[in-house]
């Protein structure tokens, strides 16, 4: 076992051990829970970063052994260039969300369980991206759902939380089952659940290929909350406690993108996927415009940002659907940049709610002079999400649109470009309505904890840096292309 393997195990193992420790400590560990959780998440992030040099040297850290030899099921993990952007995003978002929850979450006797579930949620996501065998992939995929559903059911806001959890669970579980059927078809075709067999190429009956790709695309689109499969998202994101919302929106949605890249695009060839290109682009555009319009109509400030995710995932699906070099790279970059900006916007919304105890946008206004730092961060977030240079999302949207114009479907690309106007509209509306204009009667502003403010400022700064210096991230992301569509770029 070399250092690479150890680091690889640490990415998943540190949060897992942290969660087990917290569960065992129970109420005795309530005070230290936040520190333990953040420590575990930090270790996980460090492990990801520590593996970067190895990846640059051309190594792929991996380990694996037989789990259920009778049926060829393995316990294998592997970090390659396709996993890296996602696991990096996930680990960073987890750490930031945990630090934010120090201020957000009041310590009580159930705190250990709260942090333990957050860590398990993180384990589910990092495990999903690192799993190198189908069985294991699905276990982590479902752990992600179970942990987040438990968090919403137990710590969600309002009496509606049970109903929302049920909706969230059943809706996304439907997607999981579609993915499962696809995975098992691949398993039956190769006779092993190892991804290495999938990378080598799978021969399926021609009638099955289309069905399997469709199952994967629809299944992962539910996780990505693409219209009309998005119905679970606005409720779940609005009701979930803020750290969970951040992890849901910034990290979990991108797992759908990872799934699309790993399975339909990673296993099948370009010719087999091509017939799904236009449906993906169209679904992306519809989602983009619909999400933005709904964000304009929403009243709850958390719901506005939640609908913005539906819209942003539309850009990503469009980018993937172009099946062009620029489009796919843009989509992956968008995952990273969207995670930064979406976490930032939710943090700002959380701070505004915390300070004013109000969450309807009509009840807010004129907060600029009372909370200038938060206003600045929100402004950065809004400009970034609207695709304004020099902030990060400008770069990824540029790539996505450019990918679109490389296809034969110029009309669709033009539609996407103009659809982004609605994004500008709700982004400006969000900032303008909260921070400018007259301040409503009786609007009081309480101080906010520094542990909530610090990660927000950090993310605002990060989205500027990412936009100004895109080269390193761009270089990492572009390496994934050799793993996609049979390597035919």
């Amino acid at each position, binding site marked *: 076992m070399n250092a690479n393997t150890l680091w690889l195990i640490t990415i998943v193992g540190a949060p897992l051990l942290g969660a087990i420790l917290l569960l065992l400590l129970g109420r005795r560990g309530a005070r230290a829970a936040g520190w333990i959780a953040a420590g575990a998440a930090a270790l996980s992030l460090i492990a990801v970063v520590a593996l970067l040099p190895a990846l640059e040297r051309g190594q792929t850290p991996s380990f694996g052994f037989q789990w*259920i*030899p*009778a*049926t060829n099921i393995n316990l294998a993990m592997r970090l390659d260039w396709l996993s890296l952007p996602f696991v990096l995003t996930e680990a960073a978002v987890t750490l930031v969300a945990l630090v934010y929850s120090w201020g957000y979450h009041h310590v009580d006797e159930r705190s250990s369980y709260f942090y333990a579930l957050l860590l398990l949620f993180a384990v589910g996501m990092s495990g999903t991206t690192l799993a190198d065998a189908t*069985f294991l992939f*699905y*276990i982590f995929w*479902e*752990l992600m759902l*179970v942990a987040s559903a438990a968090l919403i*059911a*137990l710590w969600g806001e309002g009496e509606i939380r*049970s109903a929302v*959890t*049920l909706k969230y*669970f*059943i809706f996304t*579980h*439907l997607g999981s*089952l579609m993915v*499962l*059927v696809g995975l*098992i*078809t691949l*398993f*039956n075709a190769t006779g092993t659940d190892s991804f290495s067999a999938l990378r080598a190429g799978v021969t399926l009956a021609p009638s099955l290929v289309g069905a399997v790709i469709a199952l994967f695309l629809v299944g992962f689109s539910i996780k990505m909350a693409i219209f009309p499969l998005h119905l679970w998202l606005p409720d779940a994101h609005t009701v979930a406690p803020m750290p969970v919302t951040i992890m849901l929106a910034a990290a979990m949605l991108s797992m759908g993108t990872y799934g699309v890249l790993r399975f339909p695009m990673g296993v099948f060839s370009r010719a087999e996927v091509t017939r799904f290109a236009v449906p993906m682009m169209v679904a992306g555009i519809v989602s983009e415009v619909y999400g933005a319009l709904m964000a304009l109509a929403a009243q709850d400030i958390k719901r506005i940002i939640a609908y913005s995710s539906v819209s942003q995932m539309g850009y990503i699906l469009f980018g993937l659907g172009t099946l062009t070099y620029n489009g796919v790279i843009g989509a992956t970059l968008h995952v990273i940049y969207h995670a930064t900006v979406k976490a930032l916007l939710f943090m700002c919304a959380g701070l505004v709610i915390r300070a004013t105890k109000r969450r309807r946008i009509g009840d807010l206004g004129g907060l600029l002079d009372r909370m200038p730092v938060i206003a600045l961060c929100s402004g950065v977030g809004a400009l970034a999400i609207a695709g304004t240079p020099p902030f990060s999302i400008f770069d990824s949207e540029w790539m996505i649109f450019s990918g679109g114009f490389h296809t034969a479907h110029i009309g669709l690309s033009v539609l996407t470009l103009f659809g982004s106007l609605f994004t500008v509209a709700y982004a400006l509306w969000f900032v303008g309505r909260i921070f400018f204009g007259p301040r409503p009667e009786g609007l009081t502003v309480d101080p906010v904890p520094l542990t909530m403010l610090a990660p927000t400022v950090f993310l605002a700064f990060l989205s500027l840096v990412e936009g100004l210096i895109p080269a390193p991230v761009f270089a990492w992301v572009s390496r994934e292309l050799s793993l996609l569509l049979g390597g035919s770029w």
Partner: protein
Amino acid sequence: MSGDVRLVLPQACLAVGSVAVWVLGRLFRMRNKVLALLTGLLFAAALGLLSPVIRLTQAGILPTWGHTGSGGAFLRADPGALLVASIALGLGALVAVYSGCYLSLDRRYETFYPLLLWLAAGLLGMVLAADLFNLYLFCELMCVAAYVLVAFRRGDDTAVEAGFKYLVMGSVGTVTMLLGISFVYRGTGSILLMRSGAPGVWTRLGIACLLLGLGIKSAIVPLHTWLPDAHGRAPSSVSAVLSGIVVPSVFFVLLKVGLGLGLPAYELGTLLIAASLLSMTVGNGLALVQSYTKRLLAYSTIAQMGYVMLSVGIGLRFGILVASQAGFFLLLAHAAMKALAFLCKGICHFYWGATTIEQLRGTAARLPPVAAAFAIALAGLAGVPPLAGFVAKWFVLIGTLQSAHVLGYAGLTVFILNTLLALGYYLPVMGRLVTQPVTQSSADAEALPELSPWMGVPVAVLGGLVVAIGLYPEPWLNWCAQAGSFISGLGR
């Protein structure tokens, strides 16, 4: 009488033990806990006595005992029967220990343990029987004990009613079986379960009657109407045995009788697939509208048996070994998960009289380990990884997809939709476990109940099993593979 006497030792142990426990309880007025421990030990001893036979069958030898001639009647060990028997004995031991506390408030506990042993003895004979005479006899022995156990709390009108309903429907099943046996005898002049060649008209009629009779006893929709009452009204420890093992064992016998009498695997498989679609959908659909926890779990048993039927049906219809194997694996997993759920429910009933789903509120606050175990059981039943139910689901899907046939895909679609439907009742029950009670009644203000180890240990063992089978299914899979290939072999 000739053959391997080790085959009947477990049954003899249970039967003698049944009388002994009754005498000790009745004449010497032994305490409930002593009887419970004794019964648990008897079950463990029977399991120990069975283990050499299990090793024999794993080596490929199927020992027999009795008159094996053409007019004979005998018992024969096979991997499937031994799997079912082992589940029964293991579960019996846990339920007996559990009852050491659970029945401590009941009168006439001294009749409970002999009946439980009697039921297990009948079950063992039934699954091992290699001819219709023994099968009928032992099936009746088992069922009579089950009828009485359902109505064990005879002061409760609804329990007596449920027991009576079970008795009436079970007897209809019995009579139908008897009719079937006479038809089979008319057709072939023999009652052995080993036949070669296509069955004639009388034999077919006989098989139809036998399948109908056994179908009633294994609660295949639309012959299921007794089950929710019986499982819902019996004491929780009895429900655990009924749902976990009695119903599945009758299903196993149904397979053995159908294939043993020469019904082509193709036909039985098609029949099972058709029945499974109905069982899954009706079971899950009706479970959704229940307000009593045990009735909900009872309907879930119907649905889960539907999944088993689908998988075994696909295995027989298309000759896919992994599907039959998955069916047996689900049988095993279901026994552990459903028994666990019933036992957890029983604990809530014991400490604060919870019968409805609403009354499960606050379980996590009062007894966190029980809430955790209950949640594990329900999550397992819902097929959440990495629990036993998920591994079963994984293999059921593999089997149905391998069929590559429209019937297989139809079964798959109904199965998936049912899995989603089932979430609609498992999740709310889990939600109740962790929410606070609506009103703080005076009883809640009392000190938190302390979980008795008599109930805690069986729950911990079953909970551990559900997780362990999920995380390391290899040995269990191998065992189920043998059972699956035995059943497939019968159909050839």
